């Protein structure tokens, strides 16, 4: 890659990240520290002093830690078993175990409540009175919902790390008389720590700031919900800013620690696996014993989804104090399709996501080219920059976009022009900021998959094209792009799927009903008394099917490399 084009991409990337990533963050930080132009620590300190905010932060931390630990507890044994054994139906179970990822946990919460609620299926089945399984404060409800939705990220990371461990290391340990659990603790675990930490960081940042699930589960005393509730006062109240600053600082610190500890691959394998390790084949009773944990986890994790599907198929009121709905019908789907709010939201989500993914694909490939194929000194910096959105919670980004939107719509020149106001003021039209938010947050996945593709493609293939007379752009179009198509499609599908079901930006930035994306509509429908919950469930099922198709599609294309997309 010629240096001039590499520098152009680098310059453009700096501009994009400056304007669309750092500026909103800066604006948040400024809002937390500067009030009326005066620097003050009053509000940051106030967050810790005010008992309500302090409790919210504490609860959010508990949510993050609880979810991460639970997800690890679920994922680690599964990954270990999947790496070590070849058990019956491994292909299907290995795929199904990833399925919970396809539904944002907050949609699952609707089904979860139908099953575990006071008047839900479990109490009906056990013939109990209105026992509150979700518990007071609903902390464990939120934690288990989140863990059951996020453990696949952990599982993929740990599995990839396990697969990377040179089997000779295990053999060497056994040769020296160390085996069983001691070998796992002394040899395997230290070697897979980078994978565990990478997955853990993503899960923690995600669950620490998750907005949708606590909202639906009515767990209001956590920082994310407090920020959401304070949105209306964004112009006058510095506390939400301060709260967001603390969340940002926590996430970024954790990300930095994980990068510092494991980013340079502290435990880089000295050699490529020399001995090929084949999973032990187990069949019959022993085989199914190994498969059992998978079946258990899958059934529990799919329970919320099952609940959502049943809710969507149950006519309003038909599933109350009963194990299963008394009757099933498609009435909710008919209503969902007839409801102009739902159709519009599907159209909106498609529009935002297609725009975001198109931008991502082009920008991501350009960045990947500079990172892999140029010799700029700054390419490592660019790579790190492109990964940064993983360190920043969606809620913080959304808050940042709100903040710069409110700043821009107060600039005189913009205030007077309906055109600019329409572009920059989310209260008028959130399209620009939603598209920007969707693309910035999913950019890392796109960059990672493009980088992986380019790294697998030998440079000499491009050199051969140049040698045969192909100018650089022709060589990219005819040789490079066809060879990395699989990676690009997978990355784009994933980015698209996540954009379609993005929660925090959608809830916070879309403020007018005619611009609602799917997730905001589900949330708004859920809050309607009467049929709302059922129509919301029907829309959730539609989203589930849609996401299942895209994720299965991308995993078919990428095969085992799917895990690479979820690493930092």
């Amino acid at each position: 890659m010629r240096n001039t084009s590499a520098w152009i991409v680098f310059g453009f990337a700096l501009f994009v990240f400056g304007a669309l990533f750092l500026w909103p963050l800066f604006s948040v930080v400024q809002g937390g520290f500067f009030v009326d132009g005066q620097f003050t620590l009053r509000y940051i300190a106030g967050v810790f002093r005010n008992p309500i905010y302090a409790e919210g932060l504490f609860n959010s931390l508990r949510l993050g830690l609880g979810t991460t630990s639970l997800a690890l507890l679920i994922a680690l044994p599964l990954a270990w078993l999947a790496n070590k054994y070849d058990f019956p139906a491994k292909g299907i179970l290995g795929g199904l175990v990833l399925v919970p990822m396809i539904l944002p946990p907050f949609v699952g919460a609707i089904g979860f409540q139908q099953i575990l609620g006071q008047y839900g299926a479990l109490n009906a089945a056990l013939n109990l009175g209105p026992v509150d399984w979700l518990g007071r404060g609903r902390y464990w409800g939120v934690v288990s919902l989140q863990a059951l939705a996020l453990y696949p990220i952990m599982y993929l990371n740990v599995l990839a790390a396990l697969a990377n461990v040179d089997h000779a290391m295990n053999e060497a340990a056994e040769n020296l008389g160390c085996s069983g659990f001691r070998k796992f603790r002394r040899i395997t675990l230290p070697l897979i720590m980078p994978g565990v930490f990478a997955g853990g960081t993503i899960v923690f940042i995600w669950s620490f700031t998750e907005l949708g699930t606590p909202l639906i589960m009515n767990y209001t005393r956590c920082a994310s919900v407090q920020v959401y509730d304070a949105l209306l006062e964004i112009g006058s109240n510095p506390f939400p800013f301060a709260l967001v600053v603390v969340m940002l600082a926590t996430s970024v610190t954790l990300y930095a620690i994980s990068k510092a500890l494991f980013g340079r691959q502290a435990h880089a394998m000295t050699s490529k696996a020399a001995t090929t390790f084949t999973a032990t084949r187990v069949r019959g009773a022993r085989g199914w014993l190994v498969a059992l944990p998978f079946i258990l986890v899958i059934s529990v994790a799919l329970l919320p989804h099952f609940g959502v599907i049943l809710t969507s198929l149950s006519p309003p009121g038909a599933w109350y104090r009963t194990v299963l709905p008394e009757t099933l019908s498609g009435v909710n789907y008919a209503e969902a399709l007839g409801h102009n709010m739902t159709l519009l939201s599907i159209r909106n989500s498609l529009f935002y996501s297609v725009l975001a993914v198109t931008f991502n694909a082009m920008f991501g490939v350009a960045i990947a080219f500079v990172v892999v194929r140029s010799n700029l000194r700054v390419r490592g910096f660019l790579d790190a920059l492109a990964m940064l959105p993983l360190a920043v919670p969606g809620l913080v980004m959304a808050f940042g976009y709100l903040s710069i939107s409110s700043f821009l719509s107060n600039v005189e020149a913009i205030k007077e022009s309906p055109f600019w106001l329409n572009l920059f003021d989310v209260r008028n039209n959130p399209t620009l900021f939603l598209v920007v938010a969707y693309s910035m947050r999913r950019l890392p996945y796109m960059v990672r998959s493009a980088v992986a593709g380019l790294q697998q493609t030998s440079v000499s293939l491009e050199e051969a094209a140049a040698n045969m007379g192909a100018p650089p752009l022709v060589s990219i179009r005819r040789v490079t792009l066809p060879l990395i198509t699989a990676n690009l499609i997978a990355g784009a599908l994933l980015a698209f799927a996540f954009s379609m079901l993005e929660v925090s930006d959608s809830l916070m930035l879309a403020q007018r009903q005619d611009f609602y994306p799917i997730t905001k509509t589900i949330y708004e429908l859920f809050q309607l008394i009467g049929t709302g919950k059922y129509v919301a469930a029907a829309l959730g099922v539609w989203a589930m099917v849609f996401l299942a198709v895209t994720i299965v599609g991308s995993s078919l294309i990428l095969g085992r490399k799917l895990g690479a997309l979820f690493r930092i």
Partner: protein
Amino acid sequence: MAVEIRIENLTKTFGTTRAVDSISLTIQPGELFFLLGPSGCGKTTLLRCLAGFHIPDTGSIFIDGSEITRVPPHLRDTGMVFQSYALWPHMSVRENVAFGLEMRKVPGPELRKRVDEALAMVKMEHRGDHKPNQLSGGQQQRVALARALVVQPKCLLLDEPLSNLDAKLRLEMRGEIRRICKEAGLTAVYVTHDQKEALSIADRLAVLENGCLRQAGKPSEVYHQPISRFVANFIGETNFIDGVVSGICEGGYRVKTAIGVIEGRGEPDAFAVGAPVLLSVRPETLMFTPPPPDSPNVFDAEVHDTVYLGEMAQHQVNLRATGNGEAPISLKAFELNPRILARDTVEQAPAWFHPRDVVILPPDAS
């Protein structure tokens, strides 16, 4: 049609390493020229400078008289065969071969005709619709060659083209490559670390070390008249004997060594009497037949290790001056059609070598 390649004072550094260090070289039109050296000697870097994948720091490259030092690779009209072949896996054999012609906007009928001819030339005409991964290593190699040749490039660049093939195929393909180059009348630059490959098919070759050109010439010249210890050691096998020039004789010098005086060949005025020198004696020049009368360089040989290879035997022999029992030196010797020393009973025999087979080199700088 064949073109000349001229390299003038070329230097390319990576960080602090001088991969190519002020090399000047002229490759004649139609010549099959080899760049030879151990790994890391800069031969591949030099070839990639010719192809345009590296821009040299200083110096110039001329192909057919015009300077192309900074011309981007796709405008150079060179045909390169990569070590890994670099066949595009998403294209069929035909599509791979046709790519260069497409880039040159060759019209359809002619394109098809030339692709057919190129595939026929490398005997791959029946594999046109296969994908590269369906071919064996040797077949991929042929396709890579056809792809480079079909565009009728100004020159052919080959980067260790045979290193991924097994020994037998390598022998077959190296003859094939020479045949094709000569038929097409191409100037070709061939990079390898395999001296047998170079000696067997090169018109001329250059030996590189640490980015510097050490010696260039015909294979037999470089083999028989190496100019330094490195070249003598890298091309073929040899024995080194330290000595001091003790006198001048016809066509060379007398050199005093640990096993007595050895007569060797050297240009007049190359060495002064009393100068320390290094003698290079190829293992195959040590003779075990009776020496001619009055022959210099006759010694007693004692075999202490033999590797029997059928057509020849490799001996490790201790050589000492005839008659006296002073400390011997150990030399490697090849005995073709081994009948004398290979018999277990024979442990001692006279051995000699002809003065024209003793090359006198300057002593090591190091």
